[in-house]
């Protein structure tokens, strides 16, 4: 450290903790210099695209794709703003149905992830400090493979000639049941969804469980609580914030997923993500695609909000 090294002018304020209002002009400049570039960048490439998407949902589709021109020289041409796509969305139940179906898939995935992640997170949290880091690393490592590769792995495993399918169908055959196809089925979609998102559940759960005070459990034991009661009355309620964080991290990406149903799904596996993708990269209906995207945003926010409220109430109940 170079103490007493020149008394330069006040050019920056990286290490000051004064209130903004009391910042000298030069420091205020620094504040803008530091926060300005990332802010402007995200305003331009995150907020503006979001706004464009909202606007696009009120436009007409172009004859060949894209959006119809806002103002056209031909008075008969479709132009200006419209609620058409929203009317189309609500005109019948099918699109709501797709949202409900995606919600069910996302919820199921979240629950399965929770059931699988909880024992693992608990074990890691109660292991000696030395081995914890390694155990956590082992959960993260599958992340080292590309998302598509993890999906592709299941394509091999569930293939009709793979050992798993042969064994499973052999078992079914013993009971006289028709063989089933594992690949290209809702089952395949669900397995891959769980597989891809499982670490998102383990990590927040572990972070939460690790912080629990072990003396609480001792106290419960002294009061005569058995192992199950100790878990259900002490550990589980305390871990609710971790469960909530993990569930959000799993639920949100699953709601928007399109690649997994695309690769592993069968004849009926269409989710919201697939529908949105199709509007942009198939049907060339950008306004409707934008409407669906906005609906997805709202649906996700709504779900997270409800979950947060439920979680909040449970904690104090």
């Amino acid at each position, binding site marked *: 450290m170079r103490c007493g090294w020149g008394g330069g002018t006040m050019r920056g304020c990286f290490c000051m903790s004064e209130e903004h209002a009391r910042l000298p002009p030069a420091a205020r400049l620094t504040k803008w210099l530091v926060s300005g570039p990332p802010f402007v960048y995200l305003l331009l490439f995150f907020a503006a695209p979001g706004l464009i998407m909202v606007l696009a949902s009120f436009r007409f589709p172009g004859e060949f794709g894209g959006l119809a021109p806002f103002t056209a020289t031909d008075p008969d041409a479709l132009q200006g703003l419209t609620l058409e796509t929203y009317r189309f969305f609500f005109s019948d139940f099918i*699109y709501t149905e797709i949202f409900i179906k995606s919600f069910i898939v996302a919820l199921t995935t979240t629950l399965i992830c929770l059931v699988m992640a909880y024992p693992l997170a608990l074990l890691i949290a109660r292991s000696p400090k030395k081995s914890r880091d390694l155990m956590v690393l082992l959960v993260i490592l599958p992340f080292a493979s590309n998302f598509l590769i993890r999906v592709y792995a299941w394509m091999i495993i569930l293939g009709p000639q793979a050992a798993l399918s042969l064994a499973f169908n052999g078992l079914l055959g013993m009971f006289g049941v028709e063989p*089933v196809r594992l690949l290209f089925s809702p089952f395949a979609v669900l397995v891959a969804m769980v597989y891809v998102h499982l670490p998102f559940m383990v990590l927040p759960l572990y972070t939460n469980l690790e912080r629990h005070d072990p003396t609480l459990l001792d106290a419960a034991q002294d009061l005569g609580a058995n192992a199950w009661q100790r878990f259900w009355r002490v550990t589980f309620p305390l871990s609710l914030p971790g469960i909530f964080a993990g569930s959000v991290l799993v639920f949100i990406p699953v709601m928007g997923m399109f690649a997994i149903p695309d690769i592993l799904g*069968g004849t*009926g596996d269409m989710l919201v993500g697939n529908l949105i993708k*199709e509007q942009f990269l*198939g049907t*060339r*209906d950008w306004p409707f695609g934008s409407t669906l995207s906005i609906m997805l945003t709202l649906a996700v926010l709504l779900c997270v909000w409800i979950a947060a409220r439920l979680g909040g109430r449970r904690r104090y109940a």
Partner: protein
Amino acid sequence: MWRGLLFLLCFGNAQADDVLHLYNWNNYISEETVQRFEKQCACRVVQDYYSDNEEMLAKLAAGATGYDILVPTGNALESLIRQKALRPLDKRMLPNLKNTNPAYLNTPFDPGNRYSVPYAYTLTLIGYNSEKLRELNLPVDSWAVIFEPRYLGKLKGRVTVLDSQRELLAAALKYLGYSANDTDETHWKQARDLIIRAKPYWAAFNASSYIKELTVGNIWLVHGYSNDIFQADLDAQNAGRGFRIVASIPKEGAVLALDSMVLHNSGPRPDLAHRFIDFMLDGRNSAELTNLIGSGNPNRDALQYIKPEVARNPAVFPGAAQQERLEMLRDLDRHQRRVLSRIWTEIKLR
């Protein structure tokens, strides 16, 4: 690997001068043909693939540029011409154009062939595993085998259909006795109901990997493109499987897709593109395409070079009676596209 990557990063642009960008259907040109063209023109061919016209149109609508050559089917060609996305051909640079069979010129999609020359054609038809279908004793001359539960009962989980809104709808419409270009919504709804009724018996909607599934023997019956079925048959023979993959044109009729070579506006090298088109119009090269990938051939000069067993294949060269029943798809407008997408959603969801 790193040296190779560095090389590409540093010198990738240096040779960009002589590169032809081709945006083609997957499985629609053989590696040998491409290599011979590269040698002849001393250039490099970079290919991108699509498996559905709609996909290609959507990607272009989303601003994809830099393609010298596209290979759209008639209806997509029509749409591309109307949106002024194509560059007119310079026929002085295409001396081999004289080889093309006039029956495939001057289509309603591009009168006078200002923008397009025929490349090849395919049919969308039924492909099946010869052994399995013979054992099961099912009719293979009708779309009924794809759509009727009484036949599908024996084929549960062994059937795939194309993951293409237009193609699947066309097959269903044909089976119902309508035109493949029917745009009457009540007819579309009948087709939808037919598809939804048959769907539980199908394994998947699939646009490309059914070739491999047929070869392996997982899938016994497909609704697919004639050249893909040809490919699956070749693969099955090479792998020494005990069966053939056979194509059949349903008696109700089927879709004929005449694919043409066109120049995209954004292509930087129209000169190379013209050379490529003329190269493909040469009888030998055109014949090689047919011999290797099993596409139909609109080139008169090519016929003499085509292998007899391919020339006899009715899925490659349909007879006059069968040709009567073939239909080319027309383009849909934005309203029809949205309605079709809604029907498709319903099909996928139910």
